[in-house]
């Protein structure tokens, strides 16, 4: 794979394919290093292009080479890599890849059946196609913010740059579907992806409300129309909470039993879903008066033992130490030359018959120059020295 991506969305796409064994070659620039290489977290707080946990999380299992794509010779090298690739991925703002001379029309000349995807913020067509966009802005842009938030409070973000991973995953899916088509027909193709639309497709319930009724669901905190209780309640300790959701009257009765308040299940205010929805403030007050005295994790186990869905909002440390995730072997800890062994989130799926793993830690910048320029492209050491001297490669 010829990987021209940067920041978070594009790298998420190419990482999915790396997970399944694709040989992903990141083409990076020293003049404008990948933005997230410059962001924390860094071990000991000491910055460095190879030290960012953010970059290292989303570039596991890839190679990296350094070249200066403002130079025609570097563009030719990139094309030689594309000619050896099945897939090319880029997520510059609309039009940038064409100006670099590495657009689909150019790449298909050197590799007629290549599958190429452009993941721009707004897509390649339409009046806003040239606009710049990043994952954090796609949450409000997509409409997600006006649907998310506390009752009668302002629109909210969702705590992460949701547009990025969402675009990356949908892009990986579209690439694989195209690869499937190519395997059957021999035909490659070009995919024009709009990152902000990839969040909109996850808001079907909100958009359909508007197209059916001309309204949109009000922001409702943690409540939903078809379940009650459905909330996050304060527990003992500072900033400790537990989420509890009951999908049926039976589950609600089990919750009441765990609370030692069986009578609540027969209370006319709470008996059936419609009753509970009509008295949700009172119900939540009753529940929180009880959870406030409880340890969140002990409570989770007691409620789960009774078949009630409950889980504390997990902090990063709790995830890292979580016995379930560790027992399942979810985390990846590969040796990295500059940050040592660190815990990273792994692959959220397992495949029984094909290898599916992170084969090595994220690359340091230009880590694979020798392999790619020398072994793969066949440049002699003199040629490489000359290219370096002329700053075509670094």
């Amino acid at each position: 794979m010829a990987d021209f991506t940067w920041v978070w969305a594009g790298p998420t796409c190419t990482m999915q394919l790396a997970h399944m064994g694709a040989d992903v070659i990141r083409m990076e620039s020293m003049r404008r290093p990948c933005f997230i290489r410059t962001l924390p977290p860094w071990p000991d707080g000491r910055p460095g292009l190879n030290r960012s946990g953010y970059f290292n999380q989303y570039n596991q299992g890839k190679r990296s080479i350094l070249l200066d794509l403002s130079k025609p010779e570097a563009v030719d090298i990139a094309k030689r890599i594309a000619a050896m690739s099945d897939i090319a991925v880029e997520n510059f703002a609309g039009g940038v890849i064409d100006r670099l001379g590495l657009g689909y029309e150019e790449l298909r000349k050197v590799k007629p059946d290549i599958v190429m995807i452009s993941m721009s913020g707004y897509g390649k067509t339409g009046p806003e196609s040239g606009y710049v966009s990043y994952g954090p802005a796609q949450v409000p842009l997509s409409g997600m913010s006006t649907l998310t938030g506390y009752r009668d409070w302002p629109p909210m973000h969702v705590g992460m740059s949701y547009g990025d991973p969402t675009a990356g995953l949908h892009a990986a899916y579209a690439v694989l579907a195209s690869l499937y088509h190519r395997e059957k027909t021999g035909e490659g193709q070009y995919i024009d992806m709009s990152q902000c639309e990839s969040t909109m497709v996850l808001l079907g319930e909100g958009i359909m409300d508007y197209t059916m009724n001309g309204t949109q669901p009000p922001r409702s905190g943690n409540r939903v129309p078809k379940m009650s209780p459905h909330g996050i309640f304060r527990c003992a300790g500072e900033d400790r909470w537990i989420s509890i959701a009951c999908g049926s009257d039976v589950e609600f009765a089990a919750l009441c039993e765990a609370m030692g308040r069986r009578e609540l299940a027969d209370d006319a205010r709470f008996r059936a879903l419609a009753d509970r929805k009509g008295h949700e403030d009172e119900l939540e007050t009753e529940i929180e008066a009880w959870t406030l005295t409880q340890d969140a994790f002990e409570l989770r186990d007691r409620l789960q033992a009774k078949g009630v869905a409950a889980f504390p909002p997990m902090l990063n440390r709790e995830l890292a130490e979580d016995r379930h995730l560790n027992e399942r072997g979810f985390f990846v800890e590969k040796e990295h030359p500059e940050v040592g062994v660190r815990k990273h989130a792994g692959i959220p799926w397992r495949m029984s018959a094909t290898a599916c793993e992170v084969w090595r830690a994220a690359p340091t910048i230009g880590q694979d120059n020798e392999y790619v320029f020398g072994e793969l492209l066949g440049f002699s050491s003199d040629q490489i020295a000359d290219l370096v001297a002329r700053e075509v490669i670094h």
Partner: protein
Amino acid sequence: MACALEGLSVIECGPNIAASYASKLMADLGADIIKVESPAGDPARTLGPFPGGKADPEASGTFLYLNSNKQGVTLALDKPKGRAVLDRLLADADVFIQDYPPGEAEALGLTYQRIREANPRLIMASITPFGLSGPYRGFKAYDLTVASAGGWTAVNGWPGRPDMPPLRAFGQQTAYQAGVNAAVAVMGAAFQQLKTSRGQHIEVSAQECIVSILELTFVMWSYMEVPAVRWGQRPIHPIDFFECKDGWIFVLCLEEHQWKSFLDMMGNPEWGEWEVFANPFVRASNWDALKPLIQEWVSEWTVDDLYRAAQTKRIPFAPVSTMADLLNSQHLKARGFFAEIGHPRTGDLKYPGAPYKLSGTPWELRTPAPRLGQHNEPVLGGRLGLSPEEMASLRKDGVVA
């Protein structure tokens, strides 16, 4: 023009929307999906939104959106005869996607061990809240508790307001995430199936799907032992909402040149030179002081004027869109993002389209979501060749609705 996944045969079932979303992604690129519902119907039929707010299992917006382009049959999988019919469907299929919780899947015989006997080249995907192994595998879960178990709600409360609880994002995002992850893994397996005819089992954990997209929050612990904070870890600023004259705008400067351009737009105020705002990291530590200065300037603008003006200078601001804004967007109209399709109960409606356009193979809405049991005859009678007597007997036994 042929669709990318033409000829790929997929069977889908389960009580959640994760399997529905995974197979929707495939249906819309041309795969042949048979959705197996219980005789009572997919629970998504009860979720709405409904036209006029009136509950109708044939008009639930969630169900209609997720199940267009599919054929629907009803089968009682808790009855041996229902399972036998499912096995016959699976015998000729390429892919089977289901999202029953592990215990229920086992009780229904939907284990890979058993399914592979019916069809060794089948790809089976099991989508569950916590995976098929580990101490939480049997935990009861809904979107809210999975979002919490994955570390999402902890980063999504209002910052600086510890009296307000951690918060979910709108909709059933954990199910959508599990669904798209499943679609990725299934397509990887399907690509290999084309080459080797080998089947396999894919197991997706929704909790892990969330942990793997926490941006820099998770690694903040493993690299620096910095605990998760609300709104996620924002080491740099500005990244925030501001109020304009007529609504909200999202102000974002990630790269330093974008900040410089923004200062320029604001007429290079004196405070732009202050040491305390000199780089993105100190702007973040001094955000409480900086935010009101930006707010004062922003409040003179309308959302649309500020959005266009910023984008003209290549600063990535964004409007805080309502659903109406999306449906009225000239950009989305020009791209043909919304797709319209008729349905006997709701009439013509616009649906969200696809976030991608494939140059050689179409994405399209061909048929609306199936009515309950709409394709029992063509699929069970036609495709499987059950005789009218067999069909009648299945109906009598409550196996087929």
